């Protein structure tokens, strides 16, 4: 009896530690001045969220969470930060006005209040957790659930990811093409700008001409 009480107490302590770490890292990811550190804090937060899945006895999700969020999405955002020369400029937040900050605080407080009402006043607190199957049966059961009766959803995910991948590449290819034909108002007013070999655009002229040929051939 004493051991059982101690076990429950330890589990609750683990929950509190993970919750404080997750919320603290999420706050730092949003508020840290240096964007690179902010992305790293996001990666650590995603890894800490996996702690909740351990407590909820969902072992497969722990692996997925760390592989996709910490390993994939964080790395993707870091690549984005490194590709953008001005992304690390800490002065990016100078346009964050106090009015906008108040609006954001109000919105998030409203979301949290509504959620707290839902969490505490609905009789969800009376529900008790069911004991999930052992680890091998858990993963086997999940695979069976996904592939036996819901294979169409897995195929849909694959299609969505493929579409996103092709879409991202298409957007970047289009960006390259638009560099040749800028859509700014100045270029519309001055179509002769393409003929103009003087100025800043002249340095990249041979390169862009080559790219234009490529785009044209596509």
């Amino acid at each position: 009896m004493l051991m059982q009480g101690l076990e429950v107490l330890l589990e609750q302590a683990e929950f509190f530690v993970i919750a404080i770490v997750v919320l603290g890292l999420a706050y730092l990811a949003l508020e840290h001045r240096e964007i690179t550190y902010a992305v790293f804090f996001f990666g650590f937060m995603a890894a800490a969220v996996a702690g909740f899945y351990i407590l909820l006895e969902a072992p497969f999700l722990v692996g997925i969470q760390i592989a996709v969020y910490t390993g994939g999405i964080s790395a993707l955002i870091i690549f984005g930060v490194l590709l953008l020369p001005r992304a690390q400029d800490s002065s990016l937040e100078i346009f964050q006005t106090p009015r906008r900050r108040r609006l954001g605080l109000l919105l998030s407080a409203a979301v949290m209040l509504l959620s707290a009402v839902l969490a505490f006043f609905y009789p969800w607190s009376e529900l008790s957790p069911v004991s999930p199957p052992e680890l091998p049966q858990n993963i086997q059961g999940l695979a069976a659930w996904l592939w036996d009766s819901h294979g169409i959803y897995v195929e849909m995910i694959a299609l969505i990811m493929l579409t996103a991948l092709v879409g991202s590449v298409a957007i970047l290819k289009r960006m390259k093409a638009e560099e040749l034909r800028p859509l700014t108002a100045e270029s519309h007013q001055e179509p002769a700008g393409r003929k103009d070999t003087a100025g800043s655009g002249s340095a990249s002229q041979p390169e862009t001409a080559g790219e234009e040929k490529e785009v044209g051939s596509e």
Partner: protein
Amino acid sequence: MIPLSWYLVVAFMLIGLGAYGMVTKRNLIRIIIGAEIMANGVNIALVAFSIYTSVFTFTGQALVIIVISVTAAHTALAMALMLMYNARYSTVDLGERVAAEGSKSE
């Protein structure tokens, strides 16, 4: 035993934090991070609901796998759009663009 309400409170706090980040920040990277934090909150709520049911099912876990995959896809797309925005306007700060347009109209 941890009550379901505790998980829901943490999940909703993460959703609130993400919403705060998406509303207040002008930096596109931070807006994407805010969206990811919200997705994490939703995932915690989904798994908690799937465990606190009368009969154990894999529905919640499978839904979380779908949500994680879709989140990864939308992050890839968002990063591509952000690079395009940066190439066109030479900044990833939405406020800077608005301020530049304002000064141009004056």
